[in-house]
């Protein structure tokens, strides 16, 4: 049996700010994108702000209504990147099988380590506290899904073990939404069949789930029963990523520019989020189109500068689409990918070019991406995507746990 940890830095951005200004620990504080603007958004908050009801992704003015003493701090992305790297260096002392999930979370496969999962988890927490001044929540289990669940169960600074012996008592009573990849759309479909807890899902017949959710029903059933076998993907030097892309087949064929545009923007946002999570940028945007007769083609263009900006990726994808598609047939699927990748070495590099505006957009998109990652891809989207009516679709693609092409 494997030993998998899921390690999650608590209130990451806010905690890093508290490291540099310990007085913030005793006041409700939030890291907010664009604090000068009334409509700046809460990216992260500390415990006191959380207790006051401040929520991530809400506007500063909303947060202030609940918490008038709220201290608002601007984000320091280069610092978060630095801390994210440092914690990964610590992880790397225990295993080379590390799969980051955003800047503050990672799975670790420590099956081969003699210390055992729980002891490693406790040592990681101690080291994070002493060496970085941050706290970790760590889930220890025999698969990735339960490990992630475990790290969510007790915060901050806690180890939660979900073993083959205790998962029925610990995991099954939880609402099904606590499972990774179960978004609001899936939750609604399950609720319609009166499946509300993870145990409900685990105990029901796989066929029921297949009817409700299609192929991903089987996957969900496996997850609930502790049968997730997905490996911890080793990222980094050993496995260079050549391109980052995503594609989508819409429930009904697309027949107009606005529909295609909405899908391309949604895809571009997803690609940008993932580029950012991996600390990458790319110089080539590739468009893939498949029509309703399943004929497909790809086309690509080079950019002047490498980017991880959804707006720039989306603009190129739409331009490619307009130049190369004549609407002879309705479209079944679209894909966007970015290649010719290079690692983004913090925002500093961007600012060397003196492109203040681009840096700002980069930070703003980082903000939105973070929110989507935490709350699902439908949490925040460009108005143009919502108009296309495809937001929910993309959400459910993610909810099914699709592993995107790399």
């Amino acid at each position: 049996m494997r030993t998998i940890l899921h390690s999650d830095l608590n209130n990451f951005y806010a905690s890093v700010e508290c490291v540099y200004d310990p007085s913030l620990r005793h006041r409700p504080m939030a890291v907010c994108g664009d604090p000068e603007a009334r409509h700046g958004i809460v990216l992260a908050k500390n415990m006191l702000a959380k207790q006051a009801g401040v929520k991530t992704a809400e506007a500063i003015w909303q947060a202030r209504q609940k918490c008038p003493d709220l201290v608002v701090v601007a984000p320091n992305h280069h610092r978060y990147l630095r801390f994210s790297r440092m914690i990964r260096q610590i992880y790397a002392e225990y295993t080379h099988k590390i799969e980051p999930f955003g800047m503050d979370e990672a799975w670790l496969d420590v099956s081969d380590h003699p210390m055992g999962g729980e002891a490693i988890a406790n040592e990681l927490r101690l080291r994070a506290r002493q060496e970085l001044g941050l706290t970790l929540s760590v889930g220890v289990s025999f698969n990735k899904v339960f490990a992630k669940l475990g790290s969510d169960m007790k915060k901050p600074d806690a180890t939660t073990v979900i073993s083959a012996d205790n998962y029925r008592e610990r995991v099954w009573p939880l609402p099904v939404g606590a499972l990774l990849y179960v978004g609001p759309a899936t939750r609604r479909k399950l609720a319609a069949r009166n499946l509300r807890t993870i145990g409900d899902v685990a105990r029901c017949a796989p066929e029921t789930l297949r009817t409700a959710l299609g192929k991903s029903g089987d996957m969900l059933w496996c997850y609930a029963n502790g049968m997730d076998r997905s490996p911890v993907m080793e990222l980094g030097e050993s496995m260079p990523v050549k391109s980052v892309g995503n594609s989508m087949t819409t429930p009904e064929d697309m027949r107009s520019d606005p529909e295609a545009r909405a899908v391309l923007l949604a895809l571009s946002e997803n690609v940008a989020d993932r580029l950012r999570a991996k600390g990458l940028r790319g110089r080539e945007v590739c468009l893939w189109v498949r029509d309703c007769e399943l004929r497909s083609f790809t086309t690509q263009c080079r950019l002047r500068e490498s980017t991880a900006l959804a707006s720039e990726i989306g603009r190129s994808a739409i331009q490619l689409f307009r130049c190369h598609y004549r609407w002879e047939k309705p479209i079944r699927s679209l894909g966007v990918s970015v290649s010719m990748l290079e690692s983004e070495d913090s925002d500093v590099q961007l600012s060397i070019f003196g492109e203040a505006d681009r840096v700002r957009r980069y930070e703003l998109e980082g903000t939105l991406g973070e929110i989507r990652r935490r709350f699902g891809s439908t949490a925040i989207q460009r108005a143009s995507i919502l108009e296309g009516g495809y937001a929910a679709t993309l959400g459910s693609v993610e909810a099914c746990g699709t592993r995107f092409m790399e």
Partner: protein
Amino acid sequence: MAHRAYVRVLVDVDEIGQVQPVKIYWEDGRCFEVDRLLDVRRAASTRAGGQGMRYTCRVRGRAVNLFEDEGRWFVEARDVPARR
């Protein structure tokens, strides 16, 4: 509470890249010799905030924590009442 007092330091870097603080210059011009390096490790300063490589040095018989934080160096200095 303490605060981070950024200081000028003289450091010695040997052939294999090991860094050893030699002197710490206080803002009022006083200079303190590092008698001995007691410990080096990555650490967060719980007293003054900040994080970096922590060099615990013996200076005039006392252990002093000297931090290297992204290229700048600070010591944990006790707050004088006027400061926050």
